[in-house]
């Protein structure tokens, strides 16, 4: 009887695994079907464009907590963005270091009287600064709210323009990022949010706020994350966006209609994945009211961000992401199979629940049972090898397709050596890293079920900004 039960569980794992691969192949097919249109747009974009005064002005919101090491360089980088009209609102989230002082000195900021309309929940503002060198640069200092959402909500409350672009303080945007991000708003009046691509900045060099050298990271943890980011942004998001069912826009680069953020109550402070939650809330808001809307993904809008380079920080991040993912799915469970929720409720969210939410349980069981069966003789050497080849083959297949898409469409990493490193990393990541990652996600799930609050502090390495 036990044996039958175990075999049944193995079948569940096997079917789950095939389902996951089928899901990936489905998304890859969607991406490939979407690519010709994308290539055509790229050709069109390469034509010289006449600038008019009819651009949509944008407020960039930069939450900063203890960012004295990088904040000035980050803002300098943002000031060089090629876009006709934008403002930068830095939100100093009660930093204990010299973030405020550095900003005031670098950009000759002066305090101006505070008068804002609070429409979103956040901690009180204590000071409001305006740069006397760059009229479009402002800084808001507030009492620490303990999370990024609190600071982002403050920035959105003080933003002047109707489109807001919340960023991470350590992000470096490509010069033309905003121009790409705003396009869906110009092409479709129902656009409510637009996401771009996040790339790994570790290994690159930044000078005077601009990326001067693009290379793959040499740190192994960062390298594995680069592969993950390529997978996530080159086909998972492009695929979902192709059928208008994008479930997430990264917190590192997105452009939103401010009024709609107000409508859905701003970024949630109850979750660790506020960016994911915001998109689910926007879907739910529009779907339940039968309002037309469009959430777009623009792969050519690129933002570079630093990823953790140590095992400890990466573990914290991934545990937090998993907990956040489950929190968001739980808060927006109404989306699941709701008659009004269309593809997002019947396809994307169920996919997220199965393959992102509860998958760590099945994955961990799959790994452990295979090892136990092999050691106890239930599984022959040949059988173990077959399962290993299946796992490796499907894993490589998805990553290799991603690398090919990257090479054909973007060719970001020009050095031949970098391309080979990418292939090598995608082979090595299957031996240990993926299993570790599954374990961290399992831990995140465990923390969510038992309401355990993990460590959240992260450290910035900032070596890629060292040349400045």
């Amino acid at each position: 009887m036990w044996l039958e039960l175990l075999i049944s569980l193995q079948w569940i794992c096997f079917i789950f695994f095939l389902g996951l691969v089928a899901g990936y192949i489905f998304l890859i097919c969607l991406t490939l079907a979407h690519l010709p249109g994308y290539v055509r747009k790229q050709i069109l974009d390469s034509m010289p464009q006449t600038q008019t005064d009819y651009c949509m002005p944008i407020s960039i919101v930069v939450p900063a907590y203890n960012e004295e090491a990088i904040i000035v360089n980050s803002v300098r980088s943002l000031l060089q963005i090629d876009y006709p009209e934008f403002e930068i609102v830095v939100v100093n989230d009660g930093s204990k270091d010299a973030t405020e002082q550095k900003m005031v000195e670098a950009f000759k900021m002066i305090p101006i009287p505070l008068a804002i309309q609070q429409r979103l929940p956040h901690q009180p503002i204590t000071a409001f600064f305006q740069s006397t060198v760059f009229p479009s640069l402002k800084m808001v200092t507030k009492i620490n709210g303990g999370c990024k959402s609190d600071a982002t909500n403050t920035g959105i409350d003080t933003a002047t323009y109707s489109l807001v672009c919340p960023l991470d303080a350590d992000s470096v945007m490509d010069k033309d990022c905003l121009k790409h991000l705003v396009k869906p708003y110009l092409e479709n009046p129902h656009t409510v949010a637009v996401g771009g691509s996040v790339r790994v900045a570790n290994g690159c060099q930044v000078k005077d706020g601009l990326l001067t050298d693009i290379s793959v990271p040499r740190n192994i943890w960062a390298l594995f994350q680069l592969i993950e980011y390529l997978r996530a942004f080159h086909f998972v998001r492009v695929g979902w966006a192709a059928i208008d069912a994008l479930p997430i826009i990264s917190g590192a680069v997105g452009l939103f209609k401010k009024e709609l953020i107000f409508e859905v109550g701003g970024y949630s402070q109850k979750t660790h994945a506020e960016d994911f939650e915001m998109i689910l809330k926007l879907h739910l808001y529009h779907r339940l009211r039968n309002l037309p809307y469009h959430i777009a993904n623009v792969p050519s809008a690129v933002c570079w961000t630093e990823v953790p380079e140590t095992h400890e920080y990466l573990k914290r991040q991934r545990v937090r992401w998993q907990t956040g993912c489950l929190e968001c799915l739980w808060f927006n469970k109404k989306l699941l199979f709701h008659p009004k929720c269309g593809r997002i409720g019947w396809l994307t969210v169920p996919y997220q629940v199965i393959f992102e939410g509860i998958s760590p349980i099945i994955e961990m069981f799959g790994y452990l049972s295979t090892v136990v069966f092999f050691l106890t003789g239930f599984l022959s050497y040949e059988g173990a090898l077959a399962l290993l080849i299946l796992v490796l083959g499907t894993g490589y297949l998805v990553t290799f397709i991603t690398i090919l898409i990257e090479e054909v469409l973007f060719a970001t990493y020009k050095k031949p050596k970098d391309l080979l490193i990418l292939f090598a990393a995608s082979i090595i990541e299957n031996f240990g890293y993926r299993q570790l990652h599954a374990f961290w996600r399992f831990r995140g799930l465990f923390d969510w079920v038992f309401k355990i609050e993990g460590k959240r502090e992260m450290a910035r390495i900032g070596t890629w900004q060292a040349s400045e």
Partner: protein
Amino acid sequence: MQSSGFETIVFLAWRIGILCLVVCLLLFFITIAWRYYNLKIQARTEEFKQLWLEILINSLDEIPRDLPEIEKANQNTFLVLWNHLKETLKAETSKNLNVIVRKTGMDFVAVSKLSSRKQDENLLAINTLGWLKEENCWSEIEKFARHKETSFSLIAAKALIRINPERAVPVIVRLMVEREDWATEAKAEIIRNIEVERFEETFLEAVWQASDEVKPGLIKLFNLLTSEKTAPFVEKFLTEFKDTEIILAGLLVFKDVDKLDLVRGFLSHNVWQVRMAAAVCLGNIGTKDDVKTLTQAVNDREWWVRYHSARALAKLPTMTSRKLKNIAKKHPNEFSRDIIQRVIGEREATGLCGLNY
């Protein structure tokens, strides 16, 4: 020991796994080959571009007698380069570029590419034929102007204007009214490039007759037209329509300083966005007579109306920081005082940047 359940899993795992690995190996070689091929193509394209850029730039002064032949593989590269130069240079300085295209036979190539199955080639052809003013291709390009894809229709519309602006006016105006997918920015660019006298009348008439849903987006473009011609229309939109969006658009383009009372009236409108737009409008064209009205508007129950009224106050002619501080000091409402203080701060900081507030 192995049961039949496991055997099936193992059987499937072997086959699927091996198949995936074979495909991966293939993908690896395709990627490497693509990189190698791409580098070769890039080098060849770069060489071709260098050669032709020099020829095209020299041709601006004098057309060379002998021109190198353009191979089929380089035709698109040539057209892209040529279009870039045409877009960058002024029309009168780039006349010789048209001669080069005809001399190399690329005009025929462009005509043939109009019916190509590749959409990027269609786009290049439309753009090129527009610059060449090829009126023979009018009907094909007009068809593209009605294409369901925004990029096609916009490029084709611009080409029609280049070919024959007079003939293009009715087509373009109709498209501007009908095409909701054309962004205001794109429509603005078209208006700027259409230098035909009767365009303004045709456009204003079309906006007047357009449905209420599309009117606001079109009214916003009035800023690009002659204000004497738009003024009567704007006034009619503000007086005869109740639709909030139309009123908002009208206030955005209102410039008639003799009819300021009309704008002042909107400061008591029941929709706050309209009150805000009226305050912004008064800030742009208001007189010192508006100090009292705007000081009252700073009392508004809606924050954005208060803020923009305070900004409008600061922008009025002869308004100094001292006068503003006085207004703030005397203002009975605490929130209004705060908002004026903020605007004073912003104005002073902007002044330090050397800019007008």
